[in-house]
């Protein structure tokens, strides 16, 4: 029966990402390519931070708890910075690729906009980091046992899944804001993205007080989501229009043969 926990947690963590992939990515090959490339860039950043971690542990070498904790904090901060560096590198690469794409494209316009790219690459980063943070936990959720014999919270699996969900979505939002900030050279926005990333990662040190890490993480996610919504061109007016279904284009678009 613990397969139920496995499936449940997988769906909680990756359900939204799956929905996004199915609805927005799967149909368009170019987006798919950029999604996978985004995942690859995240993986390279993980590889590098693992190497640094490996060296740091060898040097740190001591077994005391405080040294370990400091090492962990160092590892997390370093890894966050590295990820953002790779996001920037990916942005630079995409800009170059975009130029190339325009030249070979038959149409006048660029086949994919920077905004779309930011969303796709963010999703790529999110999915890959989500998979890496949850996959070990998921294998153990298959059972037969559940966490708690040492007095830990039995909500461990569900809490981990929800945290992964937040991180997947946050990566999308960070991607959108980050690329936009690079485009418009708004360095303060870039700094805010990195800071919030550090903050969310730091919050996980509060575990196993899951409320302590989950609630602030979700608040940050909401804020980032709103910001990303406006960055992507959303506005209250549009939202109102949308919700009240007062838009003729929408009806027209549906009638138009695709």
């Amino acid at each position: 029966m613990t397969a139920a926990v496995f499936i449940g947690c997988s769906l909680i963590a990756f359900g939204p990402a799956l929905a996004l992939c199915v609805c927005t990515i799967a149909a368009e090959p170019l987006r798919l390519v950029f999604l996978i490339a985004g995942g690859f860039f995240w993986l390279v950043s993980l590889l590098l931070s693992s190497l640094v971690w490996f060296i740091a542990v060898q040097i740190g070498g001591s077994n005391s708890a405080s040294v370990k904790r400091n090492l962990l904090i160092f590892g997390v901060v370093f890894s966050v910075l590295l990820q953002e560096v790779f996001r920037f590198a990916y942005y630079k690469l995409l800009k170059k690729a975009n130029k190339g794409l325009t030249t070979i494209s038959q149409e006048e316009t660029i086949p994919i906009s920077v905004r779309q790219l930011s969303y796709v690459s963010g999703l790529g980063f999110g999915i890959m980091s989500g998979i890496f943070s949850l996959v070990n936990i998921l294998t153990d959720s298959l059972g037969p046992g559940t966490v708690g014999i040492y007095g830990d919270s039995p909500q461990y699996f569900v809490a981990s899944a929800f945290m992964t969900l937040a991180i997947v979505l946050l990566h999308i939002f960070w991607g959108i804001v980050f690329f936009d900030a690079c485009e418009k050279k708004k360095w303060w926005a870039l700094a805010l993205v990195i800071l919030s990333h550090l903050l969310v990662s730091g919050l996980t040190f509060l575990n196993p007080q899951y409320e302590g890490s989950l609630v602030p993480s979700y608040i940050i996610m909401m804020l980032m989501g709103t910001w990303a919504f406006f960055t992507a061109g959303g506005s209250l007016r549009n939202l109102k229009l949308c919700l009240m279904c007062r838009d003729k284009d929408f009806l027209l678009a549906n009638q138009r043969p695709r």
Partner: protein
Amino acid sequence: MAAGAGWRMGAAERGGRGAETLFRGLLFCVLGCGFCWGNSIERKIYIPLNKTAPCVRLLNATHQIGCQSSMNGDTGVIHVVEKDQDLKWVLTDGPHPPYMVLLEGGLFTRELMLQLKGSSRVSGLAVAISKPIPAQGFSPGLKCPNDGFGVYSNDYGPQYAHCNWTMWNPLGNGLAYEDFNFPIFLLEDANETQVIKQCYQDHNLPQNGSVPEYPLCAMQLFAHMHAVTNTVTCMRRSSLQTAFSLNPEEVCDALSDYNVWSTLKPINTSSKIDLMDEVIIVATRIDSHSFFWNVAPGAESAVSSFVTHLAAAEALHKVPGVQTLPRNIMFTFFQGETFDYIGSSRMVYDMENDKFPVRLDNIHSFLELSQVALRNSSVLWVHTDPVSQRNESIQTQVKTLLEALINSSMSANVTLQEVRQSQPLPPSSFQRFLKARGIPGVVLADHRTSFQNRYYQSMYDTAENILMKYPEGLSPEETLDYVTDTAKSLAEVATVVARALYQLAGGTGNTSAIQADPRTVSRMLYGFLIKTNNSWFQSIIKQDLKGLLGDELPQHYIAVTTLVNTTQLVQYVLANLTGTVVNFTKEECLNPEKTPNPEKEMYVYTWVQGSRDANSTSRVPFCVQSTVRLTKAASPAFELKQWGSTEYSTWTESRWKDIRARIFLVASKELEIITLVVGIAILILSLLATYFINAKAHVLFSSPGDAGAVAY
């Protein structure tokens, strides 16, 4: 990554070392160094039980016995059964079947086990060893041990067959010879038992009448066995595998090991001894068994008798002029006797087929030491075979044997008494020799009819059973040399045996000088019953065999691996007690065939590591010359490929991959279903939301300036 890794690291903080290992595990995953098992999350979920002994499946020509779990281990909610009433919860009342029963050792009886066996609400059993040992006695062996493989049958003393005359082991409940379809483990460590009980009390105890709530404490036992049905089936499967498969996966192995033997006067093992030579065989068994795998302390059933035998061998070797006695004496230690006489049947088979330097015709007489430690008012009973004594010449020879024994016991503190002539022999290796030839012989035992041993073939047949008591506060070194009353009484038996043997071998000198050393007996008892890793054993073994010695209780199960610890230790102890130190260099000792030594064919040379010097850390190794040899103790049934044999032992042990036990908590079904439902809800919700947003993207994400230009 950091968000995710940080999350997991944070979660693992309580696990102590967990975080680092996890991170490193992650790194290894990334670097492709392989997949990481036993990570920190697993350590948060499971408590492995390390000090356990499983019950495994053994097979013979017709049956399978023992236990097994399903392929992925059997899981059940723990219920502690400390008294008979607790069983009702498991069998009928409890709302969370199947149950894993934690049974108090005292309740491990046949009646209760058959009740559990018949219930589908039991998924497994963990038995806590009971301390002190149960007073009412406990023997999982058969009432009639080795029935059908001894000498008595329809053709030979039919009235004695199947223990019709005497039930040797009336306490035997035959549990070890039952087949259970669930796993059964022995919990050897009281601390681990306490951990399980604590978990049970914290989570599973029904509180004032109400049903205990999830999460519940559960246990999982892995003991999946590869072999089924019987030896015929499993050996056929194994041989098919070895014949046709490049990567054979055998399913069972025959129980086999080596017998240890030596002779008083050296003989040339590369040829037969002279037809006219007469040999007196002294025999004991060196193996035992219990319900659980490799739990076979066998203090009374094996150790006390072979220790006595070793002490007698030492005493005889010390007698001056013993090499000139008219008859030779052969000291034999049979392995696997518990399992239908594996060792002795093989030796008889080898003798019959001229594969052994001694022939059956060379045997002058046979003296076997059965269980001897629990004597009532120091009476030692002499058992003889009534059927072969119908032959007059054999009867006379048995009389001579008896006289020699009674003469020797005169001055010792042992009273020898003859069992009345109409009683058959107890289970003994001698029966296998009798089966082949009418040989005069006796079996010495501490029991007249049924066994004195109330823990025959059980995990309680320990030093405690043979009343070995040490005063408190002794150092290991002092304990090793402390002469217990048990050691004294066994030394007396050894003295009687040695004197009798001297007379039987034709010695005419004064026997009162022959005396077994109680101190040697104590050292051997300590080594074979309490701790093999003692200074004496260390000093008498080869240097590369240090791994034999351990601090845990020594076990004397025959097993399927060649040369178990007991066999090797008996070999080295015998070599030490009966051999002589020769002035050889290491090279000469290890390769005696290269030296110009005329006696090299007659002796075996062993380079032992010697004892530690008092004032230095190095050892002084030396070379021991002895006549101690090993001979195969594998049932002839496997040699002849007669896997369904009723003549020879056919015991095999199943193979297995994974034997372990662990406890953990299981979550309620409701919580699991809720998780699943939440997951599905989130998926559906996000599908709907995404579809909606995607369809309206051009409205949502359009600034008034560039309507619909960069829609997603």
